[in-house]
């Protein structure tokens, strides 16, 4: 044991060994310097060169270049309000209650979504608080019209936390009030018509 140690020590010392190790160190850094004209490419994880760090600079200048993200990655939510039937399923399934929806019944025909489902409700409020969101993706799973989706955007930090609440409604507050008024008016008219019909039946009976 002792002799092995001594031999190892002998082997690793002495002028020429020092020179050799200095030269090999210098060659290493010079090789990296010479390879500095090559860059790491922003390739997807499935690419062969992703884990094999190729020669050259490893840095990606992030805002200008970024590694691609997987298709099933879960990042910022987006609601395509044109296709939304305001069914409230997403708000019900959300484990952290980050989706707030208010609905107003439409008084007239308001068209169909892109997959042909009839829209019957207006959404004066459709807010998603991305600060609360836990990125579980349940809401996108339950969405019957596939209007609520995860986008590939992940860099959306804000200075003011209130800006993390995303408003997806396509109605202005005035429009929302108008729809509410119309709905209430229709309800009143229906109630009046009902009352009149009831009174007429009583008179008959």
């Amino acid at each position, binding site marked *: 044991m002792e002799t092995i140690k001594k031999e190892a020590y002998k082997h690793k010392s002495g002028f020429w060994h020092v020179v050799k190790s200095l030269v090999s160190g*210098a060659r290493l*850094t010079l090789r990296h*310097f010479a390879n*500095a004209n090559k860059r790491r490419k922003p390739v997807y994880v499935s690419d062969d060169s992703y884990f094999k760090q190729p020669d050259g600079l490893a*840095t990606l*200048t992030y805002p200008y270049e970024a590694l691609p993200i997987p298709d099933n990655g879960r990042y910022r939510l987006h609601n395509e309000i044109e296709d939304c039937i305001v069914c409230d399923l997403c708000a019900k399934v959300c484990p952290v209650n980050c989706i707030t929806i208010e609905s107003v019944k439409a008084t007239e025909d308001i068209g169909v979504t892109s997959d042909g489902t009839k829209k019957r409700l207006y959404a004066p409020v459709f807010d998603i608080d991305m600060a609360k969101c836990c990125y579980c993706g349940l809401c996108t799973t339950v969405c019957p019209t596939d209007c609520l989706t995860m986008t590939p955007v992940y860099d959306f930090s804000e200075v003011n936390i209130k800006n993390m609440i995303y408003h997806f409604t396509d109605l202005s507050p005035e429009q929302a009030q108008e729809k509410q008024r119309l709905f209430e008016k229709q309800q009143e008219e229906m109630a009046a018509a009902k009352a009149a019909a009831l009174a007429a039946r009583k008179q008959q009976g």
Partner: protein
Amino acid sequence: MLAFLLTLMLLLGVVIVLAYAERKVAAFMQDRLGPTEAGPYGSLQAVLDVLKLLQKEDIVPALADKGLFKLAPILIFAAVFAGFAVIPISPTLVPAGIGIGVFYLLAIISLDVIGLLMAGWGSNNKYAMLGAMRSVAQIVSYEIPAGLAILSAVMVSQSLDFQEISYQQGVLMNAFPGMGYETNWLFGIQALGIDTTNIGGITTWNIFRAPMLLVAFVIYFIASLAESNRAPFDIPEAESELVAGFHVEYSGFRFAVLFLAEYSMMVLVSLVAVILFLGSWNTPLPNIGSVALANWTTGTIGEISGNLWAAFWLISKTFVLLFVQLWARWTYPRLRVDQLMYLCWKVLTPVALVVVLLAGVWRLLMI
């Protein structure tokens, strides 16, 4: 006065390029990009760093020895900058062509040590004090092998005048007053019978005229790294233990001056190495028969072509040495104090003494 301004401008330009090169070289050796945002490829980064430093508050600690603290950066920079006075830039251009240039340079650079001690003591900070003491111990120690290496070059050249040493190392030797009939022989040995006076180029550089000067050059280069507090001899500034060494309390303009002095020192020691060992402002290309590469790349003395070629060769060789300094910094780990002193006193100094002896014997053979 004109020489003063020109030298200052040249020095500032070289230091700005060097500070940028330092960051880029470091980045490339570590597989990073370095500065990219300020200007094309980040080339304005060093300029912006200086502008930032100039805008910062000039803080003088309340308990500092204010006089020493304020004077130290100016003294350090003045000592280094004064060294540039004797550096010949071309065959006809030298700020102050004095006959004892080498001696003057060694003396004036030693003044640097006083400035370092003033900064370290004046700061009233334990890190600054430790850094200054280490710095002084290191610089004073390494002046010995550096001085011996310079001495061997001086012995071979038989002159203390940088300009005369420069002329000896190229095809223009016979143009220097008093050396009209001198001859350069290959390796300095007349017995070999190869006259290199008109071949010039690399064959007349000091490391070729007297091959043991190659060893002297390596010794001088290692010692100069230590004298300018560069890695792997940067224990006076060891970031991980001493924060920043003697300039830990400095900010703003005074820090900028210390920074400038540090980089000027790197440039100065590289210039001295080039002048004494690597042919000064002479071209490395020799005349080969009718292909007079040396004459073509030397120009005419006293005309613009001569000055430009000389300045070009001097500055390119200096930048090669500066690159080696950066390369060493980003390759080798810092030495311990005991390793530092071992290298200086037990390795470099004895070898330098042997080289001095050999240089003396060689000079006898050269006659």
